[in-house]
C-alpha cells in the first residue's frame, strides 16, 4: 500500500508556480529523497503533504488520508522536521523533548526505544539550552523531537542543509536505521551526493519532477558516454573543449571535467589529438559512470530545451 499518493498537485504564489502538476507515489517503508536546488518547490510540496499548505489544484493523500479534508487525523500520524531546526532556543534539550512529547500526548519514556540511538548522543548535554548546541546536535535534537510520538511517516525538509559533511553522513545513517524500523522516511536535500543514500529519489527542479526512480536506474537513463578529462591547466582545457565543435556538454567536477560528445560514434583519440593541437599538456582521459549530478544537469538541459 502506498504511503503517499499525489495527483496533479499544483501550488502557485502569485504568478510563480512552485509546484507544477506533480504526480507520484511513495510506498510504505521507503527512504525516499526529493533532490533539487533551493526554489525547486521542495518546501512547498512538503508543506502540502504535512497539511500546512492548501494546494491550488490536484490532490494528495498520506496514509490514505486526504491532506485537505482529513488534516486533523493526519496530523497525529505524521512527524515533520521543517527546514530550519525548529527548536525553542531558550529551553534545554530535555525540556524541548518533554514539550514535544506532551504536545502529542505522550512521554519520553513511552517512546524512548525509538529515539534512543539518537538521543544518547545528546543526552550528556540534556541540561544545556538548545540555543547553545552545535548545528549537528541541534539536528539530532530536532529529529528526536519529530520522532517522539512514534509517527508512521516522517517528513524531513532539508535536514542537512548548512551542516558539514561529517554531520551529514551521521545523519543519513540515523535515517537508514529509522527506515529499518518500519518508518516511511521522506527527505529533501539540495546535495546531489546524498541521492545514493536513498532507496528511491525524485529529481525536482522548477516545481517539476525531472526523473523519479532508484538512484541506479536514474543513472542508467544517462544515454551518452561520459568522459572525465584532466590536464595541467584546467582553465585552458575548458577553453579548448568549449571551442570543440562536437562538444555536447562540459561541466567541471572536482579536478576533472565531465565531457559528452554530440556524435554517436567517436573515439577518445580524436579528442586527445584535438587537445594536443590546442597545446594542452598532460592530458588525462577516461570513460566514467555518470553520477546523480551528471544526470540532474542532463535532465535540466533537456527540460530547458523542451
Amino acid at each position, binding site marked *: 500500500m502506498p504511503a503517499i499518493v499525489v495527483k496533479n498537485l499544483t501550488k502557485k504564489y502569485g504568478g510563480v508556480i512552485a509546484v507544477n502538476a506533480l504526480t507520484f507515489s511513495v510506498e510504505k517503508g521507503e527512504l525516499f529523497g526529493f533532490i533539487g536546488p533551493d526554489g525547486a518547490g521542495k518546501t512547498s510540496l512538503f508543506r502540502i503533504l504535512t497539511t*500546512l*499548505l492548501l494546494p491550488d489544484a490536484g490532490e494528495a493523500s498520506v496514509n490514505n488520508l486526504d491532506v485537505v479534508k482529513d488534516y*486533523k487525523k493526519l496530523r497525529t500520524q505524521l512527524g515533520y522536521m521543517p527546514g530550519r531546526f525548529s527548536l*525553542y532556543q531558550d529551553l534545554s534539550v530535555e525540556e524541548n523533548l518533554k*514539550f514535544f512529547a506532551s504536545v*502529542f500526548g505522550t512521554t519520553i519514556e513511552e517512546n524512548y526505544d525509538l529515539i534512543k540511538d539518537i538521543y544518547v548522543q545528546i543526552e550528556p548535554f540534556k541540561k544545556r539550552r538548545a540555543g547553545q548546541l552545535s548545528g549537528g546536535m541541534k539536528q539530532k535534537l530536532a529529529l528526536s523531537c519529530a520522532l517522539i510520538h512514534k509517527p508512521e511517516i516522517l517528513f524531513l525538509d532539508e535536514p542537512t542543509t548548512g551542516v558539514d559533511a561529517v554531520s551529514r553522513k551521521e545523519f543519513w545513517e540515523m535515517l537508514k536505521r529509522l527506515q529499518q524500523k518500519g518508518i516511511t522516511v521522506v527527505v529533501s536535500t539540495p546535495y546531489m551526493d546524498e541521492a545514493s543514500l536513498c532507496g528511491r529519489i525524485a529529481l525536482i527542479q522548477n516545481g517539476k519532477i525531472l526523473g523519479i526512480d532508484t538512484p541506479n536506474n536514474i543513472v542508467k537513463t544517462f544515454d551518452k558516454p561520459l568522459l572525465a578529462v584532466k590536464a595541467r591547466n584546467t582553465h585552458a582545457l575548458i577553453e579548448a573543449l568549449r571551442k570543440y565543435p562536437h562538444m555536447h556538454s562540459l561541466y567541471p567536477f572536482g579536478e576533472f571535467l565531465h565531457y559528452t560528445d554530440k556524435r554517436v560514434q567517436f573515439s577518445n583519440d580524436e579528442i586527445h589529438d584535438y587537445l594536443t593541437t590546442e597545446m594542452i599538456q598532460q592530458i588525462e582521459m577516461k570513460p566514467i559512470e555518470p553520477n546523480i549530478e551528471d544526470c540532474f544537469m542532463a535532465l535540466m538541459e533537456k527540460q530547458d530545451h523542451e
Partner: protein
Amino acid sequence: MKSFRGFIIKEFYHIFRDKRTMLILFGMPVIQLVLFGFAIRNEITDAKISIVDHSNDYITLEIKQKLLSSGYFLLQDDIDKDSDIEAVFRKGVVKEVIVFEQEFAQRLLRDGSAHIQIIADASDPNTANMLIGYTSSIIQDYQKSLKNQSSFLPQILPEVKLLYNPELKSVFMFVPGLIALLLMLVSALMTSITITREKELGTMEILLVSPLKPFQIIVGKVIPYLFLSFVNTATVLLLARLVFGVPFNGSYGLFFFEALLFVITALSLGIMISTISKTQQTAMMIALAGLMLPVIILSGFIFPVSSMPWPLQVFSNIVPAKWFLIIVKGIMLKGIGIEYLWKETMILAGMSLIFVSVSIKKFKIRLQ
C-alpha cells in the same frame, strides 16, 4: 489536556528565561508608577504662586494663609495690578496666580458670594490641573468653615482660567490610565510577539502539525499573560495605595471583573496583530503604533477627550481603553458600582466578543 498543560509550562519557561520580557513585565510598572508619582509630587510641594489681592481684608488674608501653609504653595511675588499677571507668567517661575476681587469680604458676607480668579500656566497641563485642584479644595475647605460661623452659606466662586485643558483632574488620575496602559502592553504586545516568535523560529509549523487545536494554542499562549496581567495590576494598585496613598473607594471584585474584560479585549487584539505580522519586529511596531498610542493619547489618560477636535472624539469611542478608564475612575475615585457603569461595561464586553471571534477565526490553521 496533558498536551495543553505542557504548552502552558513551556510558555512560562519562555517568560521567565527572557530577561527583557521580565524587565518589561515587572520593571516597567514600578518605574512608570514612580516616574508619574514622584514627578507629580515634587512639583506640588514646590509650586510658586503669586497673589493679586484687590481687597486686602481679613477673609482674603485668612485664605492666603491657608493656601501658603498647606505646603503645596510658595509665595513668589505680590502683584498689585492685573496687567502684571502676564509678565509674571512669562518669567516661567510662577505656575499659578490667584486674584481676589475688590471688597471680597463684604461681598461674601453681604451678597453671599464673592469671586476668586485662579489662573494657571497650562503649558504644563498636568501640573496646572493639580494646582487648581488643590487651590479649589483649600478654598472649599475654608468655605465650609465659614458655614459654622454664620447662619447661611456664603459662596466663594472660583473662576478658573486655563489656556486649554478645562477639565479638572485629580492627582490620582494617572493610576487608572497606567493600569490600562500596562494591561494593554502586557496582553497585546506580549502575546503578539510570542506568537510571531514561533512563526519566525519555525516552531509554529510543528505546533500546527501536532494534534494541538488552534484554540488550544491561542488559549495556551494567553493564559500565562492573563495571569501576569493580574499580578501586574495588583502590583500597580498596591504601590499606588501604599506609596502614593491613591484612594480606592469602590469594589475590588467589580474592579477585577472589569480588568478581566479589558484584558480579554487586549489579548484578542494581540492575537489579531500576530495573524497579520510575520516577524516579531512588525508585531511590535503594530502593537506600539496601533495600540499604545491610542491608549496614551485618545483614551483620556493624559489629554481629556472633551477638549479634542470632534473627529478624534468620535474616533476615541472605538478605543477600548477609553471605556475602561471611565470604569476604573468610577470605581476607584468615585466608588460607584455597576449600576452606573453598566453601559461602559456592555460596550467593553461587546468589543471583547467581536475581537475574540475575529481573532479565533483569523488564526490560521495552515501556512500561506
